[in-house]
Structure formats: C-alpha cells, structure tokens
C-alpha cells in the first residue's frame, strides 16, 4: 500500500519546552493508525505539527512523498483535516452549518453553488444528521451531532488524511460507538487515511489497523493492532494494556 504520510525525525517545542523528540511514523492509504499514550505524552502536539498549526524545530513531514513546507498552499492545507476533541468549540457559533460547509468547499474545491448544495446534503445524510441540519446554528445540536458535523466539514474538502484528536472522549458510550463505526465506514468508502489519537485502548482496539505508542514525546513502539494487543514489545506498552479495566 502507498504511504500517505511520512513523519520523519520531528522535534518540536512549545514555549521553549521540548515536547516532541525524534518522532517518526507513517500512515498508508486506507489505514487507521492509533496514536496512544498518557496525557502530556505529546500526542496532540504531534497532531498540531502535522496539520501545520505548530512549526517543528526540525524534521520533515511528507504527504505522498512531497515535503510540506512551513507555509502551506491552499491545496496542501485542504489535504490534511482534523476533528477536534471538544465538540462545543469546534464550530463557529455564528454561522449556520450550511454556510460552514459551503465556505469550506467553495474555498478549497471551487465548486459551483449547485454542486456545493448537493454535496452538503449528501454529507449530512451520510453522517446521519437531521434533514434541517444545514439551516441550523451549532448551538442547537448535541455533542455527538456536533462531532459528526465536524467530521462532515473535514470530509467536505476531500482530504487525504484526517487527524482525529480524541473525537469521542467527550461523548457517552452509545454515541461513541456509532461515531467510531461511522469513521470506520467512511474510511472503507473513501480509502481514507486516519490518524486516530486516543488514550482509550478499548477504542483503539476497536478501530485501528496499527498502533503507535507515545511516551514523553517519543514514539517507543509501533506495530499491528493484533500483535500490540497480544504482546506489546515495550514495558510501557504492557503497562498501558494492564491498566485497561477488563469487563
């Protein structure tokens, strides 16, 4: 399978404090890579660096083998999208959902108005959102619905990679499961690559194809989901696994 994203030797710091140390990993087409680790291990910082919101101190990020520079073009921006942890502040409260989606598509893809309307309606239906979603403001939706709208916004610009930073951690269990299934289905339909960040190993086990373990700003272990959950290679991996409550 083709590599979509290559992260090579990334060092990054926030406010003078070094957070990421020599971070390397890659993601293939039609693959979900789970990035696990305790809080403060640098998972979200890694996401910020990949999206370009944070400049790394050194190292490189390649998308389909092409190196992404510090200042990204419109197309490069659109090719990596993100679903954030907090559904409450993911959408601009002053705009109706229809406008949020339409703005993103007209800016990124330069589509006609009819095409935008058609795609918006399709996305809303695919995300199992109410019919009138496009005409409502973000404030009128539940957390789970907002996350699906955020996913719709990310998908609307046809990205190559979606980074999901704990997108289900603030949702209750039944809503969480549906969201995970949706992500899985969308991945299969579109052949998407997804970097899924979570500290919840149950979620990772359910969703991901491969797992990367992060500790103190370093990737200490990567492997297939099966082999990681059966026999983690590192002590920290075993620790993480043993801390999961068995039901």
């Amino acid at each position, binding site marked *: 399978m083709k590599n979509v994203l290559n992260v090579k030797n990334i060092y990054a710091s926030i406010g003078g404090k070094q957070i990421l140390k020599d971070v390397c990993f890659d993601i293939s087409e039609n693959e979900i890579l789970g990035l696990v680790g305790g809080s403060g291990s640098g998972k979200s910082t890694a996401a910020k660096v990949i999206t*370009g919101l944070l400049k790394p101190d050194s190292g490189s990020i390649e998308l389909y083998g092409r190196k992404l520079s510090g200042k990204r073009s419109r197309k490069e921006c659109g090719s990596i999208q*993100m679903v954030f942890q907090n559904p409450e502040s993911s959408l601009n409260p002053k705009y109706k959902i229809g406008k949020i989606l339409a703005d993103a598509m007209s800016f990124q893809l330069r589509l006609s108005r009819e095409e935008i309307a058609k795609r918006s309606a399709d996305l809303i239906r695919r995300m199992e959102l109410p019919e009138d979603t496009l005409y409502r403001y973000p404030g009128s939706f539940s957390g789970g619905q907002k996350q699906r709208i955020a996913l719709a916004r990310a998908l609307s610009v046809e990205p190559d990679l979606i980074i999901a930073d704990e997108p289900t951690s603030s949702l209750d269990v039944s809503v969480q499961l549906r969201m995970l299934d949706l992500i899985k289905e969308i991945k299969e339909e579109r052949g998407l690559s997804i970097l899924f960040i979570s500290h919840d190993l149950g979620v990772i086990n359910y969703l991901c194809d491969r797992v990367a373990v992060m500790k103190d700003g370093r990737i200490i272990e990567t492997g297939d989901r099966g082999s990681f959950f059966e026999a983690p290679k590192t002590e920290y991996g075993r620790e993480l696994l043993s801390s999961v409550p068995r039901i």
Partner: protein
Amino acid sequence: MMGLLILLALTAPYICRYDPMAQDLYATLKKPMTEGHLLGTDQLGRDILSRILYAARTDLSVMAAAEVFPFFAGTFIGMAAGYFGGRADAVISLITDTFIAFPYYLLVIVVAFMTGAGIHGIIVTFMIVGWLVYARVAKALAASFRNTEWVEAAKLLGYSDLRIIAFEIFPNVLPQVVVVLMTDMAALLVSIVTLGYLGIGISPPTPDWGSMISEGQSLINTAPYLSLIPGFMVVYTGIALSLIGDGLADRWRR
C-alpha cells in the same frame, strides 16, 4: 425612543415654525406651553423647541461622525492584536494603556484648543482617543477565540489571517463591541455637551444642548426650563442608546 429622536431631528426643518437662531426681543423668556411656542423661548426670544431639535441634529450627527472611524479602526486593530498575540499585542497594549492612563477630558480639551473649538475639533479629538475602548474589548475577545478549535479549523482550511479575523472572529466580537458602541456614544454625547457647556465645543449661535444648558444657567431660578429641557434631552438620548445596546446584545446572543 431613538428612532423618534432621529426622526424629529431629521424633520426639524419641516416641523419647526421658527428659525432656531432668529431672535425676537419682544418675546423673551416665554414659559413653555405659551401660545405659538410649545417649549417657550429663551432670553433672546428664540424658540426653544426649534433650538432643541436643531441641536439634536448637530449633536447627533457630530456623535455619529466622530464614532464611525474609531469603532471600525479600534475593533480591527484590537482583533488583530488579540488574534496574533505576541509582539502585536504588546505594542497595542502599550499604546492603549498609555492613552487610558491620561485623563480623558484633559486630552479632549488640549486637542480642542489645538484644533480650535467647533465641530471639527470634537471629531478629530474623538478619532484620536475613541478607538482605544474598542481596541481593548476586541483584543480581549479575539485573544480568547485565538486558540478555539473553530479558529484552528479555519486555519486548517487554509483561510488567510485577514479572512479569519474579518469573517470568523468579527461576527463573534460584534455583539459586545456594539454594546460598547452604544454606551460610548452616550459618553461621547455627554462630552460634546460638556464641551459646549464649557464653551469650547460647538460654537454659538449654532444650537447645541450643552451651550443651551450653560446659557440657561444664569436664569436657573426664574426660568429653570431653559436648562432643564436640553438636560432632559441628553438623559433621554443616553437611555435610548443603552436600550438599543441591550436589545441588540440580546438578539445576537445565541
């Protein structure tokens, strides 16, 4: 309330039977409700109703003219400072804090003396100091939005900083700055009136509520209405403005 006032001010030339500056020394100090003069006349026999309405024209238009530039400039400067943070923020903070530490009226009076009394002086003065209050409010708000996910999502879509400030942040800042606009307009009206009262604002004989109050002051015992009526107009306008501010803020709060 404000609509009524603006309507009256706009139609003043059609409503008023008298020229606001026409003196009639045979009909001085008529009490309100006198035949032909609804609100009476002043010590020079000028019709008070006409003067009040013409003064509304001057005062309100000076107020609006002096407020437009500071409102937009201050809001955008503040949003930019809050959004970019870092050095831009430090520079803007330094400027606003310096100006705010300065006694406002002193500054206004100094500039009014430099540019000369009159309408232009007031507008110029206010352009210099007026934007500060908007810059402060907009900066604080924009800084609080800077790291929200919806701003980051906008960056990820590749929107330019200008676009994010103007189309993502501005709609969220607008309700608050409009409330500030309304209270600030009331404060500005008071300063226009104060300057008129002190004799360095809108210069006589152009009617202005401030100079009307001060002209009536010497006769406060015999003809209190000379000062009370323009005084009431100032209060009325102030209340109207703050009600508009509240109403708009309620409508936009979602």
